[in-house]
C-alpha cells in the first residue's frame, strides 16, 4: 500500500499537489508527473477528517460501460458512504461538489478510466486509468474508492486492507480466514489444529497465531507471500500471541514458568524477554503503534483489567477501573486511545478510553460485543457481536456510528483483526 501511495503521488492526483506545496518536490520527477501537474491545477483538501463534526462532501458518481460496471459503482459508493464523510448525490439532483466518472471497459480484461472533477472550480483534479488482466470487480472498485478518498481527504483509504478472523466450522473447530474490509472475498488460511489468537505483522506480510496441536499451544507465523508456516515460539504450557511492534518484536503471554506472564521475542523467535512477574493471569499484550508501550490484561488486582507498561516492562499502570471484567485491548493508530471489551450489566460491550484512563466511552449497547480492532487509519473498528443471535463480524466508525454486520448470517465468525496497510 505504501508503494501504491507513492504511485498515486506520481500520477499527480490533487493530493499530490498538496504534498508538493507542503514539502516541495525532489529533483527527480518523471515526465508523467510533469504532465499531470499541468492537467491538475492546484488542489485542496475537500474534507478535513480530523475535525469532528465536519460537513459531508456531496459527491455524484456516474458510470458508463457494461452492466457489471454498476456493481463497481455500487461498491465504490458503499465504501465511501461507510466513512461518513461523503454524501452520495444522485446525478439528476444538483448540489454535488465533486463528480466522479467511471468509464468501464470490459472488452479485454477490466479497464476503468477514473476521473474526479471539482464542480465548484470546474476542473479535473484526478484522472487515472486502471487496468486488470481479468475481471476482478471488487479489488478494482476498492482501489477506485481509495483513490477518491485520497483526493478528498488527503489520507490513505483502507478499502484494500483485510480483516483476519476465526470462522467456526463445527463446535470446537475453527478456521483462520481473512476477507476484504467489507466482508466479501473470504479466504481460508489455517484450518489445522485449534487456532485462536492471531495478529498481523506491521507490513502485512506475516500473520502470527497461536494454535493447539497435539495438546501443545505454540505460536506460529505464516508468510502470506508463499504460504509457508514456521514455528515462532514453543514451550511447556500456554503460549498466546498478542501483537507486533514496528521494529519487529512480537509480544505474547506464556505460562512456561508456571503462571501466565508477558514476554517479547524478535521475529526469529529469539531474544526472549520476560516483562511481568506476578501471580495470576497476564495475557493479551499489544504494542502501541510507536512500539514504546504495551497494553495487556492482568487479574493482579482481583479482576481482569487493562494495564499499560513500557515495552521493557517498566512503569506499570492500571488503565481501567470501571467494571469487573475488562479484556482484549487494541490501540488506536494515533496511539492515544485503547479500545477493549468490558462487561457491563452482565453483557460484554466495546469501550474506548484514553491510555491515561480518561474519556471513557461505551460504543456498543446491544448483545455481547467483543474483540475490537482498529483500521490502520483509525476510521473504523471491527469487532464481533452476537446481537442478532449468531456471532458475526461487525464494522463501525470509531465513534460507534454506523454499526454493520459484514459476515453472512450463515456463518459463525469471531475475533477479527484488521490488517495494516498492505504493500500490494
Amino acid at each position, binding site marked *: 500500500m505504501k*508503494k*501504491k501511495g507513492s504511485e498515486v503521488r506520481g500520477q499527480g492526483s490533487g493530493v499530490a499537489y498538496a504534498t508538493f*506545496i507542503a514539502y516541495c*518536490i525532489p*529533483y527527480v520527477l518523471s*515526465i*508523467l508527473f*510533469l*504532465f*499531470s*501537474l*499541468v*492537467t491538475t491545477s492546484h488542489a485542496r483538501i475537500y474534507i478535513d477528517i480530523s475535525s469532528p463534526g465536519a460537513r459531508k462532501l456531496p459527491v455524484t458518481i456516474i458510470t458508463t460501460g457494461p452492466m457489471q460496471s454498476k456493481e463497481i459503482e455500487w461498491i465504490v459508493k458503499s465504501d465511501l458512504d461507510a466513512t461518513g464523510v461523503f454524501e452520495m448525490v444522485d446525478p439528476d439532483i444538483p448540489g454535488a461538489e465533486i463528480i466522479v466518472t467511471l468509464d468501464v471497459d470490459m472488452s479485454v480484461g477490466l479497464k476503468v478510466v477514473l476521473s474526479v472533477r471539482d464542480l465548484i472550480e470546474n476542473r479535473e483534479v484526478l484522472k*487515472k*486509468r*486502471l487496468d*486488470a488482466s*481479468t475481471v476482478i470487480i471488487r*479489488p478494482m472498485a476498492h*482501489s477506485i474508492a481509495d483513490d477518491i478518498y485520497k483526493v478528498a481527504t488527503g489520507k490513505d483509504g483502507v478499502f484494500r486492507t483485510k480483516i483476519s478472523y476465526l470462522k467456526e466450522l463445527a*463446535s*470446537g473447530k*475453527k478456521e483462520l480466514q481473512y476477507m476484504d474490509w467489507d466482508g466479501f472475498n473470504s*479466504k481460508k*488460511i*489455517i484450518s*489445522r489444529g*485449534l487456532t*485462536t*489468537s492471531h495478529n498481523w505483522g506491521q507490513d502485512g506480510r506475516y500473520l502470527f497465531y497461536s494454535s*493447539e496441536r*497435539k*495438546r*501443545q*499451544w*505454540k505460536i*506460529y507465523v*505464516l508468510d502470506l507471500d*508463499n*504460504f*509457508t*508456516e514456521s*514455528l515462532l515460539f514453543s514451550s511447556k*504450557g*500456554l503460549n498466546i500471541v498478542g501483537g507486533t511492534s514496528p521494529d519487529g518484536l512480537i509480544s505474547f503471554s506464556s*505460562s512456561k514458568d508456571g503462571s*501466565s506472564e508477558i514476554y517479547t521475542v524478535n521475529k526469529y523467535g529469539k531474544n526472549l524477554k520476560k516483562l511481568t512477574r506476578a501471580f495470576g*493471569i497476564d*495475557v*493479551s499484550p499489544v504494542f502501541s503503534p510507536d512500539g514504546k508501550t504495551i497494553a495487556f*490484561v492482568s487479574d493482579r488486582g482481583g479482576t*481482569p483489567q487493562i494495564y499499560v507498561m513500557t515495552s521493557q516492562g517498566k512503569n506499570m499502570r492500571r488503565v481501567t477501573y470501571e467494571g469487573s*471484567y475488562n*479484556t*482484549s485491548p487494541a490501540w488506536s493508530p494515533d496511539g492515544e486511545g485503547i479500545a477493549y*471489551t468490558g462487561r457491563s450489566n452482565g453483557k*460484554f460491550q466495546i469501550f474506548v478510553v484514553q491510555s491515561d484512563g480518561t474519556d471513557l466511552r461505551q460504543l456498543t449497547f446491544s448483545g455481547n460485543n467483543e*474483540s475490537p480492532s482498529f483500521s490502520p487509519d483509525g476510521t473504523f473498528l471491527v469487532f464481533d457481536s452476537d446481537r442478532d443471535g449468531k456471532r458475526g463480524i461487525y464494522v463501525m466508525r470509531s465513534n460507534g456510528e454506523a454499526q454493520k454486520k459484514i459476515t453472512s448470517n450463515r456463518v459463525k465468525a469471531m*475475533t477479527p483483526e484488521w490488517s495494516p496497510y498492505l504493500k*500490494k
Partner: protein
Amino acid sequence: MVAIFEKIILLCNIPNIKGGYLMKKLVAVCLLIFAVSCTKTYTRPSEEEVKPPKEIQEEVMKVEEEAPEEIAYARDEQIGERDLSPAEVAEVAKMVFSDIHFDYDKYNIRPDARPMLDQVASFMSENGDYNIVIEGHCDERGTNEYNLALGERRAKSTKNYLVSLGVSSPRISTVTFGEEKPLCTDTSETCWQSNRRAHFVVTGRR
C-alpha cells in the same frame, strides 16, 4: 500553451514555499515543464498512462494460490505420550471419569469435585502403566484469550489436587481449551456450568 504558462507562473508564486533555494528548484522544475511541453506538438495533455496496477493483477494470482492444501505447515514434534495398544484402549474405555466443575471465573476445587478426584487418584496408583491428561475448559462468556488462561488454571489446580493425593507429578499433564470446546452451546446457566469443567483423558505411559 499560454494557459499552461500562466499556471507555471502561478506555481512559482505559491506563498508557502520556504527559502530561495527551494524556489530555485521550483523554477528549474517549471522550466522543465515548459521545455517538455514545448517539445511535444500541441495536444491536449492526455491522461497519464499509468502502468497496469500491479497490485490488482497480483491479487488475482494470489487468490488462485490460496488452496489450503498448499500451506506448508510447520513440523510438530510428538510429546511425551505413546499410543495405546488395542487391549489398553479397551481397558481405558472402561475407565471413564466424570468431569469436575468450577464456579464462574474461578479455578479453585469445589467440595463436590473431591469424590471424583479420589477415584482418579486411586486409579492412577493402581495402574502404573497409564498417564493422565487434564483438560481445562470454560464457558463461552468472556474473552477467548483470558478464558484460555483461566482454563489452564483450572487444569493446574486439578493437577495440584491429584499430586496432593499422592499421584506423581510427571504422570499428569495439563492442557487448556478455554471456551473452544464446549459440551453444549445454549445460553443458560445449566449449559455454562457443564462447560466450566476439568476433563480427564487417560493416556499410555511412556
